[in-house]
């Protein structure tokens, strides 16, 4: 594609900002956001301590003032968002000023540190932000495995251990809900569908900053005593916990809001901003996966938000949603939480399916086999994920007559998941496979997710689940599903798409070291957990039977190697992006999909003219890339 005027302007660069530094810092930016966030936090804290009724007497007397902390977090987040400039547009619209599309944004690197409505900037913001919290979660995991090197508590106390487990699980499950949609769907869906932007650019930016605010709030739990519930936040522990629990509640509520808005924006974009000729049957499979995930986000996350608000009310103003002594029920929490929680598993897994199916046709030089079957699989998984949640409650005392239904529905959900595998294998069949790093991660995904999926079928059986519930077997299962299914595909996406996003190549030797070390150590870490679970090792305890020590030491050492493999990745990022700086080609994988047909770095406008799509994205075997021959007038 030829260079546009805007691109030419961009390459020559904007006029230099001659204002002094102090003047540039005044305005709506990250610095202002932090200042207003901290100010809001203390304002909320102050107001919470001024409320003086008999209901809060206990809280004030024990200095466990949940009202103050919840208000502090809420005011802090509002202040943070106002500082970034998110209140400007609503206020303008309230005053009757006309709608507009863009904020008054900085022109240089400052765009990455504030409200930006360019989907490419938001994608990169997500990539860095999520990477930061992934690192925090991973460090927690290393500390957990350090503690489990001994069969009695040595490194941290039992309560701190529970907090470590809780922060690790919550950080990973919460932040990674947007792990692929945040960086990759935000960046590439508009490019893949031939659009210039997301449908709601400010909402897109808001989802990112909400997630970041949430991440810091969760990390702050250590200042308030942590929380003992793990990532599920179960009642009645939730209600009995110290103020650190409030950090969990606000974090997950913010994640929920971010998920709803992200999903809504994705669906609206995919439905309304597709280029001419890009029919539903020509949509790239990654876009379909994004669509299916977004539907789950929009429908499941509101349940989570409502549940956490009920929980906050129970903790702060003593309502009785989940408190048995007041007429509530802790099982209500379990039901509501898992109505969100099981779709959440697919919110994590589906984008991984999409990435793998998107990438393998490129590396086997074949069209995607069973395109419609794969779509049916993804939509089937989305739909069915709402009908399986009670399998998490098999041992919680649910009506025994309900168990067979939920056992069967859980087993049946493996059928649409199997469609994805069939498409994966059908595409590989007789393909000319090139074992690039992204392809290696895709192959590893298949291996890992197969183990995760089949162990899930085993666990769906009531008799098995009642034996293995709460054991390391369950932990091994979901780590194979989430790390094996999501994190491996996340790295596949990084190695595949980051050269387009950042314009620079990764060092391939380091990347291959990263892959092999990660793949081997991941399996060496989590495969023995199945055995440990069968041998009776329970989750969330730091004291265990001495005969389990040997396997635990093996697992811990493997986990440290897994952590080391992440350091290799980090070294590769720093080496490739800061020191080596080898420019990436515009289309290094010779892909035919639309995002690779634009120059690197991608122009601000994405496309000089909106392309007209005249073939599907996996049409390997014809020489012309899609959309390259024709264009439609701008705005068509």
């Amino acid at each position: 594609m030829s260079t546009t005027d805007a691109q030419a302007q961009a390459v020559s660069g904007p006029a230099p900002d001659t204002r002094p530094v102090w003047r540039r810092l005044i305005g709506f930016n990250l610095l202002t956001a932090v200042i207003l966030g901290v100010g809001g936090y203390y304002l909320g804290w102050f107001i919470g301590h001024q409320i003086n009724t008999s209901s809060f007497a206990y809280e004030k007397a024990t200095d466990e003032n949940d009202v103050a902390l919840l208000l502090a977090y809420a005011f802090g987040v509002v202040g943070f968002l106002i500082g970034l400039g998110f209140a400007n547009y609503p206020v303008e619209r309230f005053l009757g000023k006309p709608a507009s599309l863009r904020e008054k944004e900085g022109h240089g690197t400052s765009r990455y540190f504030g409200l930006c409505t360019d989907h490419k900037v938001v994608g990169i913001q997500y990539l860095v932000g999520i990477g930061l919290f992934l690192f925090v979660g991973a460090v927690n995991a290393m500390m957990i495995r350090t503690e489990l090197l001994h069969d009695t508590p040595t490194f941290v106390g039992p309560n701190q251990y529970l907090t470590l487990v809780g922060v690790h699980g919550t950080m990973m499950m919460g932040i990674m809900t947007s792990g692929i949609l945040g960086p990759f769907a935000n960046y590439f869906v508009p490019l893949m569908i031939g659009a210039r932007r997301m449908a709601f650019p400010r909402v897109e930016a808001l989802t990112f900053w909400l997630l970041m605010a949430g991440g810091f709030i969760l990390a702050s739990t250590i200042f308030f005593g942590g929380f003992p519930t793990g990532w599920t936040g179960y009642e009645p522990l939730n209600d009995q916990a110290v103020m650190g629990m409030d950090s969990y509640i606000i974090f997950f509520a913010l994640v929920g809001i971010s998920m709803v808005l992200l999903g809504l924006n994705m669906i609206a974009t995919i439905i309304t901003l597709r280029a001419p000729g890009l029919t539903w049957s020509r949509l790239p499979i990654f876009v379909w996966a994004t669509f299916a995930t977004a539907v789950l986000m929009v429908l499941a996350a509101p349940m989570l938000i409502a549940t956490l608000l009920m929980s906050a009310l129970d903790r702060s103003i003593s309502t009785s949603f989940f408190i048995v002594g007041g007429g509530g029920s802790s099982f209500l929490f379990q039901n509501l939480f898992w109505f969100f929680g099981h779709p959440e598993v697919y919110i994590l897994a589906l984008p991984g399916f999409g990435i793998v199916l998107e990438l393998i046709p490129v590396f086997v030089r074949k069209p995607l086999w069973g395109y419609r079957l794969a779509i049916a699989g993804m939509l089937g998984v989305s739909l069915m994920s709402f009908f399986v949640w009670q399998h998490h409650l098999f041992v919680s005392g649910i009506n025994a007559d309900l168990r067979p239904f939920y056992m069967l529905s859980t087993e049946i959900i493996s059928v649409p998941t199997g469609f994805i595998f069939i498409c994966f294998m059908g595409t590989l069949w007789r393909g000319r496979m090139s074992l690039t790093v992204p392809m290696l991660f895709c192959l590893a995904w298949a291996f890992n997710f197969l183990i995760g999926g089949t162990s899930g079928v085993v666990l769906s059986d009531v008799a098995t689940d009642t034996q293995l519930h709460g054991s390391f077997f369950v932990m091994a299962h979901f780590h194979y599903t989430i790390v094996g299914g999501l994190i491996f595909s996340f790295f596949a996406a990084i190695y595949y798409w980051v050269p387009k996003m950042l314009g620079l190549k990764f060092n391939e030797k380091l990347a291959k070291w990263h892959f092999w070390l990660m793949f081997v150590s991941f399996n060496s870490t989590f495969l023995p957990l199945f055995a440990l679970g069968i041998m009776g090792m329970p989750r969330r305890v730091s004291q265990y039977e001495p005969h389990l020590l040997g396997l635990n030491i093996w697992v811990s050492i493997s986990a440290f190697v897994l952590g080391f493999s992440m350091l290799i990745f980090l070294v590769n990022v720093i080496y490739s992006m800061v020191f080596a700086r080898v420019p990436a080609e515009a289309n290094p994988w010779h892909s035919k999909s639309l995002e690779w047909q634009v120059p690197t770095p991608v122009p601000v406008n994405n496309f000089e003219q909106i392309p007209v799509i005249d073939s599907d994205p996996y049409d390997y075997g014809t020489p012309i890339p899609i959309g390259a021959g024709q264009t439609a007038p701008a705005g068509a």
Partner: protein
Amino acid sequence: MASQGENLPLGLMVPPVAAGSEIPPEPPDVAGRTLAVAARLLCGATTFFFLAFLFAYIYLRSLNQNGLWRPPHEHPNQGWGAAFVACVVISAIASIVAGRQMKAKSPAWVASALGALVLGLAAVAVQCIEYTVQNFGPTDGAYASVFCGWSAFYLLAVLGAMFWLETHVASARRARARIGRGEPPPTGDIKEPARTISPGMDAAIFYWTFLAGIGVITYVTLYLV
């Protein structure tokens, strides 16, 4: 094609934006479709949010833990409840009328929309008054918790919908005032802002009408069943 990345700060990311460069806007009909889709999705999300409260109501009522579901003295005020739901429903009807008048190019639509706005805010006020006169509080058992939680978050949703409606009324009034002063239309990245009011208004009306439906279900569940 060689990357231009090495010329940029950190050698990566997207190009810096030159001052004055803008992403061309979508045509108004695309913006309208986008808003219509968003309104429907928002309805889906709102439904599932309140479904959690409906589930809590049914679950806790059927359990009646320790007989504490609803102590005998707990009765929400029927009069205030009826007034609340009446305000919500009439406001939604007024907004529908406003939408139809707008499509018929009748200038009276602004008055109808203002009426809808006032009635929606009146519903919020009525519910707040009810909180002060009812004979139970949020800590008085499971029913009281569901009642207060459900109705309070419903009020927040109503306020959100009223805000959305207000932005369109305010835009229309400001545009009229500008025309009255003989000023030219504003120049911005959306060239014809007036054309975005109608699809925006349609989306807001759709959402508000849907929310009114949830209000009726709320009323029936909390006051009548």
